[in-house]
């Protein structure tokens, strides 16, 4: 008889079973693969400080991190990817890498670094879910970890500031959302008609962004214009996390409308240009004399508008 599995994760809110991306990935995968997990939220316990959330405890084994937990479940024959071809499995790995590299920094910034969102939503939420006296420093510790992650992976040296990378990480994230939207198209899931680990990862990344009541977020506005991605999140919530009996997903008939196409084209163009300018502007000194006048006039005329 298999040992009972207990998952420690952050609790839910905003209509989601968990507000934490990695915890949501594991919860979604457990639903898709039929794994019976006992969910133990770490809220209001000292595990908010000590546990590396999400954490799966099965007998004597303790597994941390969504990728390791999913591998552990697969080894126990709880495999939502069973029907995928080898090529689709390869695509899954690639898209997960895309999410981690392009979308995660912007999500961390939106929730933990953006001053308005952090002070109005994230900090109060996590402080209210942590026991005294941890509520005074758990949110700020998580915020500093998030900031360090962004700067170390996206920053350009030891002396870097977040404002210098903000534009790039948001444009990368918008491009990533566009790519996911194109890949999903009008289907209910990314591969055929049954959800897989890629669907779990995309759901885990997108659902908090879709559902949170953020004060200021260009990324959330961008996501809300990609109807197929918001519909994807809502469908998974209705089909797998609803308290009522899950209902079959309605067939999807509409195609992307013209406005949506235009939006994604514009953002693609923006992100391509920003990639080029990223190195153009930092080109070696012998290139700089070519355009001194253009730079001087531009910096005086255009105002700064972070993405």
């Amino acid at each position, binding site marked *: 008889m298999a040992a009972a599995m207990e998952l420690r994760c952050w609790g839910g809110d905003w209509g989601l079973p968990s507000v934490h991306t990695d915890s949501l990935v594991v919860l979604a995968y457990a639903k898709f693969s039929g794994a019976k997990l006992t969910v133990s939220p770490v809220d209001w316990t000292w595990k908010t400080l000590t546990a590396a959330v999400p954490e799966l405890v099965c007998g004597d084994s303790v597994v941390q991190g969504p990728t390791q937990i999913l591998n552990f479940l697969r080894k126990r024959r709880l495999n939502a990817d069973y029907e995928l071809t080898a*090529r689709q499995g390869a695509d899954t790995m*690639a898209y997960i890498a*895309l999410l981690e590299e392009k979308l995660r920094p912007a999500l961390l910034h939106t929730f933990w670094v953006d001053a308005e969102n952090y002070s109005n939503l994230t900090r109060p939420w996590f402080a209210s879910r942590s026991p005294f006296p941890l509520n005074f420093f758990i949110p700020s510790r998580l915020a500093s970890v998030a900031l360090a992650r962004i700067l170390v992976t996206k920053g350009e040296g030891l002396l870097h500031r977040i404002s210098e990378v903000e534009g790039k990480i948001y444009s990368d994230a918008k491009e990533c959302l566009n790519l996911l939207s194109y890949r999903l198209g009008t289907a209910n899931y990314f591969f055929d008609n049954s959800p897989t680990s890629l669907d779990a990862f995309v759901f885990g990344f997108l659902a908090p962004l879709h559902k949170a009541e953020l004060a200021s977020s260009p990324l959330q506005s961008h996501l809300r214009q990609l109807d197929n991605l918001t519909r994807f999140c809502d469908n998974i919530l209705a089909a797998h996390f609803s308290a009522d009996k899950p209902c079959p997903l309605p067939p999807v008939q509409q195609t992307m409308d013209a406005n949506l196409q235009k939006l994604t084209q514009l953002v693609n163009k923006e992100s391509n*240009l920003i990639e080029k300018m990223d190195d*153009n502007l930092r080109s070696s000194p012998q290139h700089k004399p070519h355009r001194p006048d*253009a730079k001087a006039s531009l910096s005086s005329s255009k105002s700064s508008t972070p993405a």
Partner: protein
Amino acid sequence: MSLAAEAFVSQMAAAEPWPENATLYQPLKDDQILLSDHASSLSVQAYLRMCGLPVQVVCRANAEYMSPSGQWCRNWALGYFAGHSLSDALDDVQRAEMKAYMELVYNMLLSAELYLQWCDDATAVEISRPRYSSPYSWPLGKILAYQKQWEVRRKMNAIGWGGKTLEQVYEDVSQCCQALSQRLGTQPYFFNKQYVFCLPSCPCCLYGHVAAMADRLLKSNLTYFLNQQRDYLACLKLIHQRKAGHCCGVCKT
């Protein structure tokens, strides 16, 4: 400078023709360059040769410090070449896949290379630190080598690789190579049967990493995984043959 202004400047730069005397600077080939830098350099060279753009490769001890971003090879290869629209022949879904596979290569292979070079104590002490500090006199070389190691370890911790063991890293590389091999299948290229403008930068990055791993210092560790993926290596050889004079120049580097 604001984003809009920078985009405008980029547009202007994009209209300029490719310069005849374009130069690619890399660390010293025999004594200094490490696996990950060599891989990045090969990727860029492959990309430029596939585009038919002439470039001269010059070795400099301070190549790393020439680039303000520290990510010179990657961003260059991705988007600099206006007028050489490598991705235009792909549809939206293929472009999404291309970008996803590029991130897989960078995320997995580059991280593994950095881990093996700097987080594995044996390699760091015997190979990476001596090579990295070779152009500099004592104590500058020692200080720079330790600083580089500290930076890379910090990055590995940030992306969650700090707690991994060597075996776990090998497992990840193996899975990555299998995924890439599956994606390539028996086709000559990743995204089309045709050459050059249907061939985006993904295989160039890949070629760079694979060629570097097959050729360099950590032979005993990483080439093991490459040898498992015979289809994949055969297809890379096909890339070499198709490009004849172009890639032969790259292979010799």
